[in-house]
């Protein structure tokens, strides 16, 4: 049974220095509120995992929370670079950042393997690319035992903590989300501990087209966080704040300006 608690308490109980943490949400339902709480609590040396780091990891990286990043596409969608991510990779600011880089298909399969309690996943991919060499410790070749065909293998990802945002939970902690569902289910099921922030807690989860439900017993903690995905969006609650994604390019351009903005708006 998931414990329904405050965001602050949930993050304090679940996220510790040095943990591997995946805050997922494929463009939709990105758990910004939870990421900000991690920053406020001053976590350090996290291994951050996310297919598309997006602004939330730009902020975590810029604030020095991360020692390592596992990812597959590190841009500001529709805008350009993630400047704090680049500053860390190119100039080790505010600290060096180890990276482990994969393709989207590789990451999605690593999560699915984690959710399935398998040590690895098999896919067509990587062969011929330099990711195969650069991420050699996490990409291998396997041979089909029936056809002899050569395929790529990637190790499962099983984070210490998986965090996602969803539209709703009921009072028992059953979670419902819809729209683009991304890898939300996979990351909750792949993680040792999980936190779901929700737009609202309701008496009953009415069935809706395209919705998936995570039963309360598959989740560790649920916390109410209205607008907790902003500037990302929550389908049927609020739209993506495209303007903020544009502004972020300017806010994050210089180290000082970034730090000041974080102090004023997040800390």
């Amino acid at each position, binding site marked *: 049974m998931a414990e329904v608690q405050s965001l602050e308490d949930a993050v304090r109980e679940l996220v510790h220095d040095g943990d591997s943490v995946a805050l997922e949400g*494929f*463009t*939709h339902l990105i758990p910004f509120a939870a990421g900000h709480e991690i920053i406020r609590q001053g976590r350090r040396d996290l291994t951050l995992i996310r297919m*598309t780091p997006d602004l939330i990891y730009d902020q975590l990286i810029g604030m020095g929370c991360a020692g390592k990043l596992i990812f597959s596409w590190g841009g500001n969608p529709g805008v350009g670079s993630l400047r704090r991510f680049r500053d860390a990779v190119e100039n080790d600011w505010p600290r060096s950042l180890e990276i482990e880089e994969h393709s989207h298909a590789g990451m999605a399969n690593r999560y699915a393997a984690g959710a399935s309690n398998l040590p690895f996943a098999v896919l067509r991919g990587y062969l011929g690319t330099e990711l195969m060499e650069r991420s050699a410790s996490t990409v291998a070749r396997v041979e089909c035992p029936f056809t002899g065909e050569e395929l790529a293998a990637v190790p499962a990802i099983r984070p210490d903590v998986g965090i996602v945002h969803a539209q709703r939970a009921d009072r028992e902690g059953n979670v419902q989300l819809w729209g683009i569902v*991304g890898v939300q289910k996979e990351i909750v099921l792949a993680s040792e501990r999980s936190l779901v922030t929700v737009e609202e807690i309701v008496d009953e989860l009415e069935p809706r087209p395209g919705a998936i439900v995570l039963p309360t017993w598959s989740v560790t903690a649920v916390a109410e966080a209205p607008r907790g995905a902003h500037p990302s969006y929550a389908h049927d609650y609020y739209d993506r704040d495209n303007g903020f994604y544009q502004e972020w390019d300017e806010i994050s351009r210089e180290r000082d300006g970034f730090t000041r903005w974080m102090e004023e708006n997040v800390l």
Partner: protein
Amino acid sequence: MSEDFTADELMTVSSARELQDRTVCFVGIGLPSTAANLARLTHAPRTVLVYESGTIGSKPAALPLSIGDGELAETADSVVSVPEIFNYWLQGGRIDVGFLGAAQVDRRGNLNSTVIGDYDKPKVRLPGGGGAPEIAAMVREVIVIIRQSERSFVEEVDFRSSVPATGDMVVITDLGVLRRQDDELVLTRVHPGVSVEQAKEATGWDLRVADDLDETDPPSDEELRVLRELRSALEEAKA
């Protein structure tokens, strides 16, 4: 026929024309999405757009800013999980065309969207491969949209992010169109007012030119009108 269009507009229109009707197209965000939607709203109304966020058959009225905008889900025939879109639909071999961008392309058609310079100490850290490595590998035809210059058209990419499958590959630039023939990109068409010399100068290798070099038809009024409507709606959405 309209005369006042930019090189970028012609590149986008030219890319859209590559997309035949009733094909299933895996679309990257940015120029590829613009071109694919332009095709859908002009000559290819039955084209099926698939986005890596898991939306199948999206019919956005305005251009999405991100790969996972709500509009893509709302207008889709089906929304599936990200593992499913990559495993059952892309790897499953159900996608005809992959529409991609890149920072660099080389003579053989390899694409780089990862780093400029050395991987471990990059001059510029780019976003990375994202969905492109598997899109490029699993579709029947790869269409790449990229502005042509000595920096983007290189003898060998700084990093092989994506290696397009052995099927058809076409590269649409602001100067013309290249097709892969015998494992090498060959200039097959130039845009109006562009000389072969210009295209060669903007290429970091000794560019081969097709014997039957063609010239691109300029954008039609209809193509320009739809493209500009799409773009202005996008600009509004950004604001």
